[in-house]
């Protein structure tokens, strides 16, 4: 009897949709991290300066944010694969969107002592607010990792596209990463610890934004006013 049961239990395993199991687990983890981040914010507020300048505390928050972003992206990519993610494009007032977005990162930026600049023209843009938030969270988080002292977020209109850029004053992107267009979803590089997940997600989101024949894209290069890396997302 017992062995029969084990057999039938074993037989059922291959029927499980493993990617769905993963997705639910990711969903759960993401929510847990959300709670964790909430507590960190509370803690920072309660403890004030005592903790705000502690590099350990800032690392804790930074890494938790990073994981949270990764999980959000993972879920996004899962839904893309399921053909269940589409861009709900609406018209937004860009300065409002970006300053609300920045507010989320303010405590960490202040804690890390990183200077921050927002330069947004008074223009309207067409995009899916939630998807773009996911992309920018990840990009800013990435910039926090590589910058020295300063990060700049800007938005302007160029060649009929809305261009949102995140610049830092770090080393910049290595040569092999600087390009325009869709990066391939490569295997992750264990040596450098960098995965192409963030860029893959960003470029997938960009290309979900279309208008007539035009399509969104991302561009990576170095230089700019801060001399470090520049991430740009171009939206039609």
């Amino acid at each position, binding site marked *: 009897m017992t062995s029969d049961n084990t057999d039938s239990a074993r037989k059922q395993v291959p029927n499980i949709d493993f990617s769905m199991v993963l997705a639910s687990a990711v969903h759960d983890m*993401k*929510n847990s991290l*959300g*709670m964790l*981040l*909430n507590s*960190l*914010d*509370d803690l*920072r*507020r309660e403890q*004030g*300066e005592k903790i*705000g*300048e502690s590099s350990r505390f800032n690392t804790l928050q930074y890494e938790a944010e990073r994981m949270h972003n990764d999980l*959000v992206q993972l*879920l996004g990519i899962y839904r893309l694969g399921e*053909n*269940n*993610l*589409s861009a*709900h*494009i*609406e*018209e*937004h*007032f860009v300065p*409002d969107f970006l*300053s*609300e977005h920045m*507010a*989320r990162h*303010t*405590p960490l930026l*202040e*804690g890390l002592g990183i200077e921050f600049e927002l330069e947004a023209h008074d223009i*309207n843009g*067409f995009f899916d607010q*939630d998807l773009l938030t*996911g992309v920018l969270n990840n990009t800013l988080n990435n910039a926090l990792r590589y910058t020295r002292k300063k990060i700049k977020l800007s938005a302007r209109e160029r060649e009929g596209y809305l261009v949102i850029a995140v610049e830092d004053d770090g080393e910049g992107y290595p040569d092999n990463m600087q390009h325009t267009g869709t990066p391939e979803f490569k295997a992750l590089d264990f040596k450098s610890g960098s995965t192409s997940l963030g860029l893959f997600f960003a470029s997938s989101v960009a290309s979900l934004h*279309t*208008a*007539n024949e035009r399509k969104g894209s991302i561009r990576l290069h170095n230089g700019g006013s801060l001399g470090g890396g520049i991430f740009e997302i171009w939206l039609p």
Partner: protein
Amino acid sequence: MTEPAAVPTGTDFAKLSYLIIDDFESFRLSMREMLRSFGAEKIESSAKASPAIQFCAYNHVDVVLCDFNLGEGKNGQHILEELRHKKLLKRSSIFLMITAETSKDMVMGAREYQPDAYLTKPINRAMLLKRLDSLVSQRTALLPINREIDLENFPEAISLCLKYLPSQPRYKTWLMKTLADLYCQVGDFSHALKIYEDVLNQRDLSWASLGRGRVLLATGHYDEAENALSVLTQKHPDYMEAYDLLAQALEKKGKSGQAQKVLEKASELSPNALLRQKQLAGLSGANQDLVTASNAWRKTVTLGTHSIHDSSENYLALGQSLSDLSEGDTSSDGYANADEALTTLRRMERRFPDEENIKVRSRVVQSRVHAGQGNRQEANKALESVSDQLSDNETVDPELGIDYAKTLFRLDRHKEAKTLLGVLSNRCADDPLLLQKIENLLDEPVGFQQKLQARTLNRDGIKAFEANDLDQAIKTFDDALAIVPDHAALNLNLCQVLMKKHKSTNDNTLLQKAQKHLERLESLPAQHRQHRRLVSLRKKLQGMMT
């Protein structure tokens, strides 16, 4: 890190009143503290839904900050629905839904009410300040419009929208959406359509496509609506409203099977919208798909637990659907369905004890469930417990009466059932929906499986008739009538075939047989849709017989 004392925004937070709803005390405290630091003074907070709703009933609130997940009981969406539905919260007040989800999966597809904004946890002070500031600025800028909408003064709201459009580019989308909605509300569909099409000419935006679909549907352009909406669901598989409208368009075109498929898909993607489940339940029931109907009614009942849309009607429908499903099915599945039907109906009696007719409505169905399982004694007992409320055909509630007649047929009390239905069709002469139900029951006073069988035979008989295979047609209609002897259309179909055959054979027994079938319809109520056809065939037959 020091907190800035002054708040660098244009909003006067002290003027507004706030309500925080969250089940965690620490969260309520930290929200309160953040609001205070912006200068807010009038702050109320609540851990649970009911006191929060109560508070809104007696106090004016400008900003509600509500967590979606409140543990057991009502969630944030239930509160929003109740506040807006009962008009306890004005349109000009702001409802902010706080979610732990980055996506809106949990709340996606809520059909009627949507919060003014979502705020995703974790929330810090700077975020809340920025978000509140822009919401309040928007509220202030658009207040004159919302005030008119609250007063249902739509024409004035329309002219204000038109006035603001050139001067408020920041709120352009809101103004366009609101304007188009208002045009629809006042029935000016051509202006609404023009807005959507102007937007779409510039850019393919999903809200405008949806609006266009809605107008096409409302103006009876069902083909175009179906087209536009099915394109929209392909482009945006997560846009629930598009599925709802597409299903409506398909239903209008008589494609109720396809409409059901569309709603099934939508309910699969977003299983928590009660009204969609309810619509699916009704539609699949009408499509004779009792398994889907029962599942959807079950979900409707479950989702209703904390919702303003909770209703005894949902419980009753679930009981009826399970009763039909279990009838004559004595397998373990049938027994389980019957058992669930009885449990559901008993729960209904307990949950809505003060509603009129609740007990009698419940027992009439319970009796039928017992009869369907072969428990004649239990069936009679259930009816006897409410017999005093069913004794007067002239005063019984028509819906209840029809349901009672259905039970009477099941208990082989055909004569009583027919008498009752006769009285009811006189009483409901000007209610086509009820008349239709009475007709269906008179035609097919049998169980669900037999009903399907008779319908299939009827279709086959018509096919044979059209192929001019008269003998086959007569045989098939005879078979069908063995199941539903009083079915009006079937009896008349058979007469028509018999009379046609008489033309080529001159066999008078055919006419006598036809005569017998017409006699069966002697008591057909004059309101019946087949009544006219009966009269004309009777006349024709008399002519042939003399």
